[in-house]
């Protein structure tokens, strides 16, 4: 049984293509590991309760809230943060199409939620490609179209307190094309 002393554990993670071996407290969230241990401050600590989406990253290609994911439970995972989105293209210096579209559509104001919006949108578009439905997808409707209503529903886990949704939705729609 654990007492009041921290319990340390070793784990290996691949983050944005780079292998890391770390010794961490079992209580460490993936978010704290990325920000405090690896200095990857793209993922933001907004609410730390899974309610705002500012910490969204990709775990083995799937979007997830890094604040609620215990790092120790994701040992050996492949993690992508906003810092690794750009490098995913053919030319490592090019922005990811989502990043480019966010700039062109002025899809942010303060920018705090943007890294989470970008990672979430990347994960969401992959889900859409796999044919995953959403709550607004007609049941037994066959082909699914990525309408603004679909984008809003699928991105509802990412809050923007500046209210840049008006531009986020068309930015994602353009990047999806």
């Amino acid at each position, binding site marked *: *049984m*654990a*007492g*009041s*002393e*921290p*319990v340390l*554990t070793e784990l290996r993670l691949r983050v944005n293509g780079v292998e890391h071996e770390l010794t961490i*407290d*079992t*209580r460490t*969230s993936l978010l704290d590991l990325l920000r405090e241990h690896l200095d990857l401050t793209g993922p933001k600590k907004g609410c*730390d*309760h*899974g309610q705002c*989406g500012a910490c*969204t990253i990709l*775990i083995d290609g*799937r*979007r*997830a*809230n890094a604040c*609620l*994911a*215990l790092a*120790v*439970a994701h040992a050996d995972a492949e993690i992508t943060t906003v810092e690794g989105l750009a490098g995913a293209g053919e030319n490592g210096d090019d922005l990811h199409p989502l990043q480019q579209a966010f700039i062109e559509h002025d899809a942010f104001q303060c920018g705090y939620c943007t890294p989470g919006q970008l990672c*979430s949108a990347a*994960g*969401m578009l992959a*889900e859409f490609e*796999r*044919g*995953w*439905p*959403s*709550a607004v*997808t007609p*049941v*037994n409707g066959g082909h699914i179209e990525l309408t603004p209503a679909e984008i*809003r*529903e*699928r*991105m*509802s*886990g*990412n809050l923007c307190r500046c209210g840049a949704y008006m531009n986020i939705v068309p930015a994602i729609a353009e990047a999806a094309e």
Partner: protein
Amino acid sequence: MRPFRYERAVDAGEAIALISKEPEAKFLGGGTNLVDLMRLGVDAPGTLIDVTRLAGHDRIEETAGGGLRIGAAVTNSDLAADPRVRERYPVLSEAILHGASGQLRNLATVGGNLLQRTRCAYFQDVTKSCNKRSPGSGCPAREGDNHNLAILGHSPHCVATNPSDMAVALAALDATVHVRGPFGERTIPIPGFHRLPGDEPQRDTVLDPNELITMVELAPRARATRQRYRKVRERRSFAFALVSIAAVVEFENETATDVCIALGGVAHVPWRATTAEDALRGGELTEDALKRAAKAELAQAEPLRDNGYKVELARNLITRTLLELAEPEA
């Protein structure tokens, strides 16, 4: 947060052996609720036993008669997107997709969803009394901010609601939970898996200590079944239900030969509306019949000071949802 040891079990047997020798251990699924509760100080296990990678628990398999067996570690996302679920149990896919967010559903598991705790604000705030968190300490929610708490089946000890969307659909589908514990395996039907608060609100379910959910089984459904999930909430997406409904109806021409209705957001359990079901089974689902059945069901409601609106909401949801199922082209 209290320090804890972490163990990753490889199969159900190991998971149960591990938890049986640790008095303060908990199973860990996706962690979307438990990790949050640990951070809030509501829960403080000494050991976490990760059950997300147990052998075979990540699969959805066919049963002999055309039903499905869903492993407890299947994520909410994978379950909602499964083509067999979408075709045969669309109400389950709909319900899951009406809960949480895309990134939470990617982490959350089926077993964890069934065991998620209430979102009653008093339960989640360790500076407040709560009989569920700290038995015997009292329930300030009863006279406090109760606008989103229970209207049915509550007790003087607890007015919390079950927050799950998935469980509402599973209740309407008469799903079965398979569990395994130190003394063997058993199956528990939903409804019947979650329990009313009574004088033991600390117990959300009928699970015994150290029992592990291994899978959820869905019985085969007749082809002519119509199903729907509807949810009313304070914003259009990513919010818990004020009231939700899962309806599963079998028709023979105009006659509803079987009617299953479960309500979410109204009780400590997914509430099977058996009074309304009995009134409707074998008849035509006309607006008048539906209104009468919904009224009869909600006659047993005991609204609190600020949640009386849920009674009318629940009545209207029953009427409108089943009317839509009766007239699918309308």
